[in-house]
């Protein structure tokens, strides 16, 4: 296996682990961090492909993902703060009445 395959395999593993974390963990903040892990896996695959093909489109997309991740955290953290302020818990199961 060469380096690119190792890196793509790592990117897949990071994405899958992040997805498992979002499904499996109960803590809201840990779920948010697992979403960040998924974004990191996608970033790694984009950088690997950009490096392999020698084009800069992948790197541009990585920059835009950085901004989207910052925006995601900026909007997710106030929501978590408001939720915790109302129910005094970080347990995702305590907010079951939010599903539609």
């Amino acid at each position, binding site marked *: 296996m060469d*380096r*690119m*395959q*190792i*890196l*793509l*395999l*790592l990117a*897949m593993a*990071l*994405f*899958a*682990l992040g*997805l*498992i*974390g979002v*499904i*499996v*963990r*109960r*803590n809201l*903040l840990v779920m*948010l*961090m697992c979403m*960040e*892990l998924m974004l*990191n896996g996608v*970033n*790694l695959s984009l*950088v690997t492909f*950009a*490096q*392999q*093909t*020698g084009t*800069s*489109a992948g*790197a*541009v997309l990585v*920059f*835009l993902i*950085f*901004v*989207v*991740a*910052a*925006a995601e*955290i*900026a*909007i997710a*953290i*106030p929501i*978590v*703060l408001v939720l*915790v*302020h109302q129910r005094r*818990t*970080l*347990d*995702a199961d305590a907010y079951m009445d939010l599903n539609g």
Partner: protein
Amino acid sequence: MINSFLANLDTALLYVFALSAFAGAALMLVLRHPMQVAMALISTMVFLGGIYGLLGVHFIAAFQVLIYVSAVMVFMVYVIMLLDVRDVSFTHRFSRWLFPGIAFGTLLFAALGYGLVLGIDRLATTSVSFGLAQFSAAFLSEYWLQFELTSVLLVAAVVAALAVIKGSRRRDRG
């Protein structure tokens, strides 16, 4: 012998960084306290920054550390310290979706790996590296619209965060 070792040093470092990043990501699933999870995520991000540096995209490595580790994770650590709630999510780490979640994630990984094995021959191996100058020219000449759209997204996120906080305050008062 030392020359061959030095020639393969970057490949060895790449493997070490990849293994460490994977170990950090795996630790995130099992650690109990959110602060420990945040530390594992930070180590994974730093190792990914090292991988980007080894690949030759130094500016992305710098931004990985500057934006992800400095801005996003410092914010996250701050919120973890602010909300030190020892509740049921602290004593019981996993939801009732533990086994379906692990099965689904493993299935996804297997499907992606199968796709990688199928597409290995079609991967072009040019590996022509691009520099910061080429990236900057492409960024501001071809992708300026996407750049502006992301800045609009950032403004929208800030306004939305203010709206969330204000809405909850109004509900508290009323």
